[in-house]
């Protein structure tokens, strides 16, 4: 169980680093996706190693999470496109105006 959890921690920290460090908005979104995936991996691991492997709840939770992540990616990328239309840039540091 330990290797899986370490792996998911690594994924989560990598995603966090991308979200905090990268300037490009797309990569910020990529980091968020990585963090979501780390959480999904944890769910599956806890289902497999946990006390109640008969329950389907973790699987369904991951399924919902995947679906929501897809929606989130779609809206997020559309937002980036809209921002790019305004600022001609995807650099999050450029988006420092409070007006649209």
């Amino acid at each position, binding site marked *: 169980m330990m290797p899986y959890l370490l792996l998911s921690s690594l994924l989560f920290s990598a995603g966090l680093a991308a979200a*905090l460090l990268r300037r490009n908005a797309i990569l910020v979104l990529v980091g968020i996706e990585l963090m979501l995936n780390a959480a999904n991996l944890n769910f599956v691991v806890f289902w497999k*190693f946990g006390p109640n492997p008969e329950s389907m709840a973790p699987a*369904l939770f991951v399924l919902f999470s995947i*679906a929501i992540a897809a929606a989130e990616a779609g809206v997020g990328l559309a937002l980036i*496109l809209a921002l790019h239309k305004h600022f001609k840039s995807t650099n999050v540091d450029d988006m420092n105006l409070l007006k649209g």
Partner: protein
Amino acid sequence: MSFDLAILALLIGVSAIAAITLRDLVHCVLCLAVTFASLAAVYLRLGAEFLAFSQVLVYVGAVAILALFVVLLTRTGEPRAESRFSPQVMIPLAVCAFVFTGLAAAAWSSSLKDSPEAVGASMKLKDVGRELMTSYVLPLEVLGLLLTAALIGAAILAKADDGEDDEVTDLGESQGQQQRPMVATTHSDPKHD
């Protein structure tokens, strides 16, 4: 830790790090796709077939492709010479290291640490479907609503708004380089660094 898991872990680690550090955005997203696919392999190894295939279908087949499209649609001329990372590097890195150690320590001190793998457990599709249609039918419907809303929202957000275009271009020209056609910019993509 078995051999195949070691390979998968290595693949996930390397591709995730590559996905967040590479300069070329297309490479980043392709590495991200590798991460997703290897994660699906891990799910497969854990006996969650259905989740693994959903993961590939949704993440590799849709999210990564969508991200690639957006990368190509948002290219503006030559990439700027400045660093691809934010100016303050140390603080976020410290935060990430802290989060990693925290998570690892939590995992280490967990009471489930040495719990055995449930060998026979696997996600039978029939059970998943039955649960989905009985106890989780409301979340499913809400999810459908959410996806519809996201679809419409994304379409409206990404739609070209003709009315505002004039002032937008003024703002854009004052701020950055003029936009070049997509194809030409991908050609002039320098391979330095």
